[in-house]
């Protein structure tokens, strides 16, 4: 706690705080829990449409939207970056446990997970080790608790060498409304699970750079079997409880302070069931041991509730009650060890940082390469190869509702209990965001929107995660603010509210170099019709929908070959109109292949065709673009474009809507890529697509 915050605490308490109170408030006022560097700007997301039942205003653990029949879909996104850097297996596994409990705590049943992973270069041994541990950890937890990981992202970049990004999103469904904070004096506070010594001070650990010191005490240990018991019993006993709070960052102390609102509470820490003997009350207060929850329950129902947990030998104990007094008191062996008045409970500090200027337009040295080398480098890039090595370690078919499985399309799809289909996609683009976070944030939101259209889904809501270096760096803080505004503008334009999110600062290496700015969006959409599995064959014509614009700034091409390029300025109306057309074509059965043009440009969009052991001929003159440069035509990542195979009628329909749609080539049996006079053998690309990750990781 800094000196100003300590002074503030003294004045709120009207006396000197004791050491326990300082430890408690340090957690509550940590960046992780209080959003002190970001809260002001995050209010930019504060709008909603009629279908949103839980938005950013609730400042809750998750966001939610409602379908016509009353079914509620809950979204939650969180990272476990610092823990995964130190202990990839447990760090990633507990991250999964955390998002799942957040979804349960609003009263929904978790039905799907996504994982978005960013690690150091694939050539780096330590980065591969981290990836191995992270994937194993996510699989361990997700598989054991029985929630399928249905999609995600994996990319490699030296920016994440010391600070991997491990983002996990969880989706939940409820057909009986959500739990909302309706506290009354006299309700009992009940904890389940044992409290131990792991995860001490995790919230403040996550709010500082990794300093290279031994911080393993801050890591929590994953126990998915216990997590499964907590999940199953909570879902079974939902009617007995009035409210639920996950014990996440900051432990019991922070959970109670965040829970009480206008009321108060008395908690007897000596009643908390412990895993180890002789824990100090302070340790009990801030421990972040996993697989614990706090429930708000009417006194008459506590016995029945705890009886169900004890039946499976799971600790369940009443530890206190809600009071009308406007303070939170923690007692240990009859003595008050901390007493925080409501005025201090409600107060959250704010950190004001200076905002740097926008970065200069960016130039990197151009490495000349011929077209063949450029095409092959993109086709074989490790970010674009098959991720089967990752997904096959996840039980993505559990619950028997997975429709579009990982790697099949631009978005994943599950069937909901009401018979509708839910599409999900996570998108980020740090290579672009490093040059212009505002344009980039708009671009990733637009990309997620396009991705959902390729399976015919109408986007309904999004959650975001804003991941940066230290806010004390004016350039980093500028990137953060630009990301917020970019996402907010796109969200409003597309009428897709951002219903929740997280912020993670202090992602940097031991020399203080920040990660590339990495805002990330997970978007959810609904479709009535079961999306088809795309099928292409030799002889099919390739159609390009949309207008190709120059500006390879932030593209994969620039990452590989450098050069001075403009940063593309997203034209959201292009994305919106093209996406709506594609979505309607998918739903009317007019397309047999629909791929968003994104990373790697048009060449990247060919990969799902080439991997089926097919060849492609591209007529470069047929690509409608604002440049004659073949590099622009082949590698531009400008938005609003889709590569399609389908009925001829879509060409005229596109043109009636004022959107370009041209035949730009054909799928061939011969496994080569022909562009003008150039003919590239694809056999090696095909085999590297399928085996690169498997070979590198084994």
């Amino acid at each position, binding site marked *: 706690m800094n000196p100003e915050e300590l002074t503030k605490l003294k004045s709120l308490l009207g006396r000197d705080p004791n050491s326990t109170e300082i430890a408690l408030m340090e957690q509550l006022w940590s960046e992780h829990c209080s959003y002190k560097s970001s809260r002001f700007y995050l209010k930019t997301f504060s709008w909603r449409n009629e279908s949103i039942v839980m938005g950013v205003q609730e400042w809750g653990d998750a966001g939610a939207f409602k379908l016509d029949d009353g079914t509620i879909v809950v979204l939650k996104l969180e990272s476990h970056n610092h823990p995964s850097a130190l202990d990839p297996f447990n760090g990633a596994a507990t991250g999964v446990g955390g998002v799942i409990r957040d979804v349960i705590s609003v009263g929904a049943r978790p039905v799907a997970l996504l994982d978005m992973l960013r690690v150091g270069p694939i050539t780096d041994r330590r980065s591969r080790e981290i990836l191995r541990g992270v994937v*194993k950890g996510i*699989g361990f937890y997700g*598989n*054991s*608790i*029985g929630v399928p990981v249905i999609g995600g992202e994996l990319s490699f970049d030296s920016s994440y060498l010391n600070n991997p990004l491990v983002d996990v999103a969880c989706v939940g469904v409820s057909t009986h409304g959500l739990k909302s904070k309706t506290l009354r004096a006299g309700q009992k506070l009940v904890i389940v699970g044992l409290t131990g010594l792991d995860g001490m001070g995790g919230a403040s650990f996550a709010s500082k750079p990794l300093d290279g010191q031994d911080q393993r005490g801050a890591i929590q240990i994953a*126990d*998915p*079997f*216990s997590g*499964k*018991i907590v999940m*199953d019993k909570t879902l079974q006993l939902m009617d007995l409880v009035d409210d639920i709070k996950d014990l996440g960052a900051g432990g019991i102390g922070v959970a109670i302070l965040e829970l009480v609102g206008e009321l108060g509470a008395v908690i007897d820490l000596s009643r908390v069931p412990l895993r180890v003997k002789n824990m100090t009350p302070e340790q009990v207060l801030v421990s972040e041991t996993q697989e614990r929850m706090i429930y708000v329950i009417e006194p008459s129902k506590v016995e029945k509730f705890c009886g169900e947990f004890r*039946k*499976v030998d799971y600790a369940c104990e009443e530890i206190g009650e809600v009071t009308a007094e406007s303070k939170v008191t923690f007692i240990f062996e009859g003595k008050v060890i901390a007493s925080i008045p409501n005025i201090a409970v409600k107060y959250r500090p704010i950190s004001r940082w200076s905002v740097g200027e926008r970065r200069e337009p960016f130039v990197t040295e151009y490495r000349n390469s011929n077209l063949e080398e450029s095409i092959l480098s993109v086709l074989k890039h490790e970010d674009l190869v098959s991720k089967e090595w990752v*997904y*096959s*370690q*996840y*039980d*993505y*078919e*559990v*619950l*028997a*509702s997975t*429709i579009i499985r990982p790697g099949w399309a631009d978005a994943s799809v599950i*069937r909901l209990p009401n018979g509708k289909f839910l599409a999900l996609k996570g998108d980020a683009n740090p290579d672009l965001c490093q040059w212009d976070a505002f344009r980039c944030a708009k671009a990733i939101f637009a990309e997620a929107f396009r991705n959902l259209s390729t399976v015919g889904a109408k986007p309904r809501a999004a959650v975001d995660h804003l991941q940066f270096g230290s806010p004390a760096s004016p350039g980093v803080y500028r990137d953060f603010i630009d990301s917020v505004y970019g996402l907010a503008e796109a969200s409003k334009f597309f009428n897709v509210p951002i219903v929740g999110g997280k912020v993670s600062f202090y992602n940097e290496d031991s020399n203080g170099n920040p990660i590339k700015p990495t805002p990330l969006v997970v978007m959810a959409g609904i479709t009535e019709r*079961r999306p088809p599995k795309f099928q292409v064959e030799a002889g099919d014509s390739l159609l390009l929908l949309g207008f190709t614009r120059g500006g390879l700034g932030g593209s994969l091409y620039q990452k590989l070959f450098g050069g001075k390029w403009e940063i593309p300025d997203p034209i959201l109306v292009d994305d919106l109109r093209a996406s709506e057309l594609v979505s309607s074509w998918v739903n009317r059965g007019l397309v047999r292949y629909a791929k968003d043009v994104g990373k790697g440009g048009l060449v990247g969009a060919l990969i799902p065709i080439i991997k089926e052991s097919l060849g492609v001929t591209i007529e470069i003159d047929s690509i409608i673009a604002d440049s004659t440069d073949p590099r622009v035509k082949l590698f531009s990542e400008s938005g609003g474009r889709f590569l399609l195979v389908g009925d001829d009628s879509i060409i005229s329909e596109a043109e009636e809507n004022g959107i370009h749609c041209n035949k730009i080539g054909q799928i061939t049996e011969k496994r080569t890529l022909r562009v003008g006079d150039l003919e590239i053998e694809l056999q090696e690309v095909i085999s590297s697509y399928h085996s690169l990750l498997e070979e590198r990781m084994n």
Partner: protein
Amino acid sequence: MIAVIKFPGTTCELETAMALKEAGLRGEIVDHADFDPDRFESVVLPGGFSFGDYLRAGAIAAGSESLKKIKEMADSGKKVLGICNGFQILTEAGLLRGALLPNLNGRFLTKWVYLKVVRDDTAITRNLGGRVLFMPIAHAEGRYYGEGDWVQRTIVMTYSSATGEVNEKWNPNGSLWNTAAVANESGNVVGMMPHPERASFPFSRSTDGLQLLRGLGGR
């Protein structure tokens, strides 16, 4: 009525019960501690991680009181199907012979596979001899192993190509003789690593699982 037994850590009970319904049968999810064998004609042990798979996969559930009751049911000729973790439990409990070892690649593996039915005198494969079925596997410990002349006779389904070729190329986990499912001698106790309940709904990638599950009906 078919009992779908839930242990702490079981993950597949809901879709297994729904798949039985899809197959025209009646399944009821029963907590292992409350299991009354007299109420049921047959039993399914669904997939998951019973008791967290601590010790060995299925080992703790195999020692539970409910398995004694299931053994009695099996001895009296009632049908018992173990799927994935349920198969592991049945081998641990000695209702089926052989063992399920960690996959050869040492990792958890989800994959859609083809299965060739090689034995049609069991509860779930009657009239399916020679058929090739399509459904997913998802496990870390599914490499079937056994020693002795009896092994060949127990095999009910083997991993194969789409056209029913059985060789090492189609073996996802290193199982002896591509074994995916086995049964006891009289065929009323069957264990299988693949998940029929995940290939049982109109929206599933395949509905081949129903052909197997339907066998649980009747005597």
